[in-house]
């Protein structure tokens, strides 16, 4: 069974600022065992699998309630004060005010319209960091019963169904769908999520780059090639992340935090 750690900083913030604490188990962090994993994007030209070290991951994406407590504690991240370097003009635009959620942003919804810098600052303040891509992908490979459901056509169809349904609509509250085998929820079907190393995702869809002048823009072994070409849900994530810049925000992009497991 995965163990659970409450996010102490979030609780302290909530008490200090008298923000109501989450009625659900939002803010909990789950320990994942890690291990050998075959990612969709291979780590190198000859490597097919990676070792994921044990890590902690938030059970759910960070909510509007939690992010509001953060900007109240760290006003430099309010949308009316944030430096343009750190976020585009749509930052937290669903909220009715810099310090107020208003009717269009429910407290239990995942926070969206946040930049990589803001997500990273939140996780730092909450005692953690953003998950790395491989950690996210490893976590998201599980369904409710097995750790790696990626080859299960029914699971894939379900995920794809979620993605087609959620497009363009404000996200539901976190915690509404069943937790996966690791005890983590909402990895699919709610929002896209930032990862610490989003800038490491450079997709070259095939090997035709040989002799292509574009190849010169990449050092070392060149851009990475996708290994499992029919894992559409993960490829969609990668396509999105590889198109982002650190200050971008979108109405369907949120995040959750992770941390190392202390020995």
């Amino acid at each position: 069974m995965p163990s659970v750690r409450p996010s102490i900083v979030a609780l302290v913030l909530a008490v200090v600022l008298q923000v109501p604490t989450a009625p659900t188990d939002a803010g909990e962090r789950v320990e994942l065992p890690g291990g050998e994993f075959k990612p969709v994007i291979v780590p190198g030209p000859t490597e097919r699998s990676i070792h994921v070290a044990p890590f902690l991951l938030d059970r759910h994406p960070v909510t509007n309630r939690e992010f509001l407590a953060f900007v109240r504690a760290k006003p430099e991240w309010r949308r009316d004060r944030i430096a343009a370097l750190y976020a585009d003009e749509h930052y937290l635009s669903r909220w009715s005010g810099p310090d107020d959620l208003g009717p269009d942003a429910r407290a239990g919804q995942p926070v969206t319209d946040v930049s990589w810098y803001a997500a990273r600052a939140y996780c730092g303040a909450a005692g953690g960091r953003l998950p790395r891509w491989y950690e996210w992908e490893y976590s998201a490979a599980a369904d409710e019963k097995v750790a790696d459901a990626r080859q299960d056509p029914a699971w894939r169809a379900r995920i794809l169904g979620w993605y087609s349904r959620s497009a363009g609509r404000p996200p539901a509250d976190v915690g509404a769908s069943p937790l996966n085998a690791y005890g983590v929820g909402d990895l699919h079907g709610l929002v896209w999520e930032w990862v610490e190393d989003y800038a490491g995702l450079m997709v070259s869809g095939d090997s035709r780059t040989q002799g292509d002048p574009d190849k010169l823009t990449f050092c070392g072994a060149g851009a990475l090639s996708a290994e499992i070409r029919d894992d559409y849900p993960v490829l969609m994530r990668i396509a999105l992340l590889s198109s982002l810049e650190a200050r971008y925000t979108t109405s369907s992009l949120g995040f959750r935090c992770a941390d190392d497991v202390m020995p």
Partner: protein
Amino acid sequence: MKKSLRRLVLALLLLGGSALAAAAEVQGSTPLPGASIYHLPVTLERVGHGEVPLVSLAGSPVVITMFYSSCLVICPMLTVAMQKTALALDPSQRAQVRFVMVSLDAERDTVAKLADFAADHHIDTDQWVVAHASAGDVRQLAAALGIRYRRLPDGNYSHSSALTLLDARGVPNGRTDDLSAADAALLAQIRALLH
């Protein structure tokens, strides 16, 4: 008074204080523009000059790139592109521009290794800034410069290559990924900042 204050602010910064305070000090009373990359609380460990805050680059136009010293193909081209850009400027113009190379390889590119790299490529590290930064600082700086990179299992990096021009206050003002020659557009943008 002002000098000692500046020293105090820099000392605080090196102890982990806010770069914003130093930024405000370096810039006098004018705050940095919102889009300035000098907001980043990044510390550079310079070859020959110790640790300096990123914001210490403020005050003159900067041409900045990210690379790693063990890279055999693109990075030497990046270095040459920087050098060609510098040489295309008149000496008086060149003296007003800072050329900055920050390593992506926080793990292996120690300052000593970067010093060897600079010597091998005849880079004067009093004129140019050749620097190491922590992995977290590399990530933030690369993000601000729009440089994508990934460490490969063999220790090499896959990364995008570009020269970015910053104005005196750290706002990006031009960019090129043409490494074959001194980019004419970039040179024009540099010269425009000098007048």
